[in-house]
């Protein structure tokens, strides 16, 4: 069960590094070599997953609630990464992002039943429905428009159907199952916590029926989205929690955080342009896509400043925060040691 508020970190699927120009952890780019006269025992002894494993362990050690491994067709495969991170942890919940086109719903459920059994039910799904059309086609998926949500609806219905019912039969537009359903010990497990995204009417309708958590990004109108989804989920008679994917850069004080933002901005090629200002009302800063390759809008400042920004979202009903900070190992430790304790009171009250 997730604590309140729940914090997750984002796992990088295309390597990581100290600065925007050096993403050389995880073998997506060559590492700077050691000089030849220095003993280097690494070649042949390490693979790219050793780096991902260290990120997962950092999150586990730093008492972070969970980790999101996003669906990234050009990066590491998220279900396999999730399986590895779950295996080496005891508490961490891992959310694997994937697209309904990549697997049959029965198989996705079957794969997940094994992971739930292996890991004391710590797996989550983030189903990505609204892919860029070119990316979708590159994955063999030519479905367009509202049909994608209709298929996602069927995908989740079938996956939950075989999960919960023996002798399950389904006849839909996209999927058909005859006398399916899992048997012990693959039956009776909690279904993976479902994370969904999007602000279109179709996206909110799907979340109302199927999401455990609906994730927003900071450039979206979170308040309106929460209001609409709350009304719809009430009509469906099931609760939905709200979450936010948010890049953060937190330091001891505001000056230091902004100095680091400027340093990364300049390194990423922004030196000639000057650092953009944060929005005076929301405190959101729109430069993260450039310095971190994440969504553009996030929070920069002292731990207290970032916590105040998160409290603003908590007040609007958001309880899950999927934070993104590079380099992931160091920043995960930082978030666990400095940011999370600022919410200790809230977490205590939720239990």
């Amino acid at each position: 069960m997730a604590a309140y508020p729940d914090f997750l970190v984002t796992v990088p699927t295309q390597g990581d590094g100290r600065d925007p120009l050096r993403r050389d952890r995880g073998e997506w780019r060559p590492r700077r070599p050691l000089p030849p006269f220095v003993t280097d025992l690494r070649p042949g002894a390490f693979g790219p997953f050793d780096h991902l494993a260290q990120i997962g362990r950092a999150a586990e050690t730093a008492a972070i609630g969970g980790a999101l491994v996003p669906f990234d067709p050009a990066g590491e495969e998220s279900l396999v990464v999730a399986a590895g991170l779950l295996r080496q942890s005891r508490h961490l919940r891992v959310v694997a992002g994937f697209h309904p086109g990549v697997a049959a719903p029965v198989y996705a459920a079957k794969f997940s039943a094994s992971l739930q059994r292996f890991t004391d039910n710590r797996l989550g799904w983030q189903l990505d429905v609204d892919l860029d059309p070119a990316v979708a086609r590159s994955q063999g998926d030519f479905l367009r428009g509202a049909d994608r949500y209709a298929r996602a609806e069927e995908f989740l219905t079938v996956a939950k159907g075989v999960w919960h019912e023996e002798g399950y039969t389904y006849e839909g537009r996209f999927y058909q199952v005859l006398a399916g359903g899992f048997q012990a010990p693959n039956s009776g497990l909690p279904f993976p916590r479902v994370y969904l995204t999007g602000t279109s009417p179709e996206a909110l309708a799907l979340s109302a029926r199927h999401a455990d958590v609906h994730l927003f990004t900071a450039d979206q109108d979170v308040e309106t989205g929460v209001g609409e989804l709350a009304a719809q989920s009430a009509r469906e008679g099931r609760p939905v929690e709200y979450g936010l994917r948010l890049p953060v850069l937190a330091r001891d004080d505001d000056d230091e955080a902004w100095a680091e933002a400027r340093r990364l901005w300049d390194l990423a090629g922004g030196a000639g342009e000057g650092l953009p200002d944060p929005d005076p009302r929301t405190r959101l800063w729109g430069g993260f896509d450039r310095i971190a390759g994440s969504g553009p809008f996030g929070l920069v400042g002292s731990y207290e400043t970032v916590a105040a920004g998160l409290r603003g979202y908590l007040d609007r009903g958001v309880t899950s925060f999927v934070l993104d900070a590079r380099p992931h190992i160091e920043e995960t430790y930082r978030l666990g040691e400095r940011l999370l304790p600022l919410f200790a009171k809230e977490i205590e009250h939720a239990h």
Partner: protein
Amino acid sequence: MPIDIYWRIGTHGDQQSLRRRVSSRGEWAPVVPGSLAPGVRNGRRDGYSYVEHMADVARASESSGFVGGLLPSFPFTDDPWAAAAALARETTTYRFMIAYQPGFLHPVQAARMSASLQRATGGRVVYNIISGGGGPAQLWWGDRVDHDDRYARTSEFLDVLKGVWSGGPFDYQGRFYQVEGAGLPEPLARQPFPEIYFSGSSKAAIEAAGRHADYYLSWLEPFPALAAKFAQVREHSTAIGRAPKFAVRVDVLARETEQAAWDEIRRGWAHVDPAALRGADGDSVGWLRSQSFVSWPVRDYRELEVSPNVWGGFHLLRGGPAFGLVGSYQQVAERLDELIGIGVDAFILAGVPHLEEAYRVGEEVLPLLRGHEIRRHSSLSPISATKGSI
């Protein structure tokens, strides 16, 4: 002449930075939200202990280019043998430099533990033999042997350890140890003997090092003092036909710019208790030496910079030795190169916090080293040594 570069794994918790001397990693401070290993989840301890963080540090330094880690041993630390046995299973190539005093263990038992660890790790055990800092800490361990005798005992200890290593039967009649028909059983006896890093700054230590050290290990000192110490060891060793290599423990605070590095020191200095500006318990010659390079008391942190980037105040910001390097990545690499130039063959580097700084130093400083060229052009004669010799 490959240079082996080790990291240090703190065995008594860690701070988040040098800015505040507050431990939040491990059980050396109250476990509260924000503590790690053990951490707090939903108001309860998460079931982990400090070894989990040591494993994070071991893997961080292993993957950033260090060959292994020093595991220090003091009354208030976790035990290095136990830690090495646990961390062996968490790493692949990483060597464990186990600090211990001969008084802790009978040499036959030390041989058995070492051989088993060699089997468990594929030969990744290294010794840091210390003969004890003396003073109250020696009696804390229940060790009543006095300073010079401790080095004599260390010599006997290593004679016995090496004697039983090859299988025996081995007999020994010494002042401190007697064994009869001793020897490791097959297949323990077929393991490679660990390399020996030998510490100690006194005359007795240097004599013992001459006989047993693969590496003579010193804390960082101002470079001329270090060079003089190495010369003394070299002279003594040559006289008995041996040629140890040299290693130095160096704390490092490296940042992109020199200014940023000193800013870290400045922030930490603001919290130093003025009353703590001097402390020299025990009969450790190394510690007394390290304090003698500075004219105490000092008023400003820059007074502890005895030569460019060589700073003698690290012990005021965290537990451990006094001297280390402070500067830009480039400056720190240049100072390490100078140390290679005066004969250093291996480093044990360290930084606080150990996890984050392992990545930083491995990624930013080590690739800048040019030491080989410096050694080739220096007037020092090349130093050869046997590796792991018995």
